[in-house]
């Protein structure tokens, strides 16, 4: 079972600037599994992705990605950073952005008219077309990416992350700033890629509900501790109360959605979530899992 694990963390911890962000994270992900990293804002969910990419060292414990130390197998990892949208005036097509995911890290410049003579070039073109098809972005891939909607851009960026047939896909809040139908659409797409292409997906999420039905496992991080396991075992009143060290209640709405209530503050729905980007001191505030 360890052998075919795409990634495994054992008792991993991370500190940034001397401050311990999280510790005691155990996680193992196999091909075709879909895992979410959850937790309140500012707790360091995105640093989990950085550790897996190898750009940030783990402070303790062991981290193995694709059988090697993090960062050694970068070729086989697709990465979608947390981001705002592309500037509306950026004059580059979606297909070019996807293409850069394939060969943008090479030196040199593509030669004009090489398509006619080089089979490598034709194979590359074919792969770009195929992956754009896979995410359902063919209709707008030839438009300037700045003119595409948020959901369209996100599909193209997922295509970019997938274009090299990675075995592991790291997604940092891909549903952030999308409307509800687009959230559902992208979540279903990620699940389909997981199953169809047998890619392991680790996704940092602010809101678990759009992906809840697709998840194999979740990691719930709070400052000082973490729990991992199936969503039905982790997102419970007992586990979260133990993690937070203060009474927390998980409510299940009639349609199956989960809402976390409790803690020192009123359980606000974080509609003004971006205000929290600027003040990470709110790490102790509870997330409403809408």
């Amino acid at each position, binding site marked *: 079972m360890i052998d075919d694990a795409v990634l495994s963390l054992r008792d991993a911890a991370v500190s940034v600037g001397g401050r311990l962000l999280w510790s005691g994270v155990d996680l193992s992900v196999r091909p075709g599994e879909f895992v979410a990293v959850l937790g309140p804002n500012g707790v360091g969910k995105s640093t989990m992705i950085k550790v897996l*990419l190898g*750009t940030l060292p783990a402070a303790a414990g062991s981290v193995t990605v694709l059988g090697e130390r993090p960062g050694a197998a*970068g070729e086989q*990892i697709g*990465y*979608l*950073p947390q*981001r705002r949208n592309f*500037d509306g005036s*950026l*004059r*580059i*097509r979606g297909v*070019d*952005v996807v293409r*850069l*995911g394939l*060969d*943008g*890290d*090479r*030196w*040199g*410049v*593509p030669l*004009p008219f090489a398509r006619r003579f080089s089979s490598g070039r034709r194979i590359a073109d074919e792969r770009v077309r195929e992956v754009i098809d896979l995410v359902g972005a063919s*209709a*707008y891939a030839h*438009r*300037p990416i700045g003119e595409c*909607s948020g*959901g*369209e851009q996100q599909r193209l960026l997922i295509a*970019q*992350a997938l274009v090299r047939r990675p075995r592991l896909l790291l997604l940092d809040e891909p549903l952030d700033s999308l409307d509800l139908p687009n959230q559902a659409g992208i979540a279903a797409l990620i699940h389909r890629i997981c199953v169809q292409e047998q890619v392991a997906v680790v996704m940092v999420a602010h809101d678990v509900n759009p992906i809840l039905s697709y998840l194999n496992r979740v990691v719930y991080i709070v400052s000082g501790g973490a729990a991992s396991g199936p969503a039905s075992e982790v997102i419970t009143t007992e586990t979260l109360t133990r993690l937070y060290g203060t009474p927390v209640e998980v409510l299940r709405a009639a349609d199956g959605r989960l809402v976390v209530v409790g803690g020192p503050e009123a359980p606000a729905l974080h509609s003004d979530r971006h205000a929290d980007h600027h003040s990470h001191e709110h790490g102790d505030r509870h997330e409403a899992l809408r």
Partner: protein
Amino acid sequence: MNPGFTWNIITDVQWMWSLPSMVNAFRAGLAVAILAGVIGWFMVLRRQSFAGHSIAVTGFPGAAAAVYLGLSATVGYFGFCIGSALVIALLARGSGTGVGERAHSSALIAVVQAFALALGAVFLDLYGGFLSSTSAFLFGNFLGITDEDVLTLVAVAVVVLLAMAVIGRRLLFASVDPAVAAARGVPVRALSVLYLVLLGATVAEVSKFTGSLLVFALLVMPAATAQVITARPGLSLLYTVVIGVLVTWFGLAWAYFGNQATGFTITSLAFACYVLAYAAKSVRRTLRQGRPGRLEVA
């Protein structure tokens, strides 16, 4: 010397090219347009026009200082342009994606620019005021270009363009998508410094012909026009170079026959191209939006 425009285009061109200085102006114009076009295309894409403008402006005190100290203006252009490119590259830290970082770096660039202009004024004052050179430093001069000038220009252009050919694809990735590029092992920060140095060298060399202010016409306008016309990177780079060369050559001919300043003619033609491209795009977009049944569902 200048018989004027006669509508017999072949004789006109023969006349114009019978003068070695005009032939050199056309040769220099070709090299300048290609060099400025390629560097400028990335500058527009990377939204570093303001940085490029400031680097260009520092060429002016550089040239003034060099002449005051009895050195060649070339030394001043290169020293100051590459120097200010390094200052901007090294001080403007961060990936430049955050609003705060951008505000910080644009303030910093403005500081460099203002100080450079003040320095330029001081050196001119120290020298005792040389109005003709001031005008050449700021607005350029395509006349009286020697064979040696052309050779230097071509040498600089070859070095800069070779460097761009090597880093081209990675620089495009780093410009469009810095976070993913960095995760893929592209040295985003080093490329950004290297690009600014290449920009500095380009601006220094091109400024000798176009002046510190009008270098900008050739850096920005062809690239901005091409990026309005197409979003395909390769094609848009090609258009940039073609527009740049045509604008420069027609501008030189216009300046020769019309007895106008080259700065004015080249810039006017480049501006006209941009306005035309922009207008055509707006018209096309209005027509497309006006057509029912083509509304796309996001």
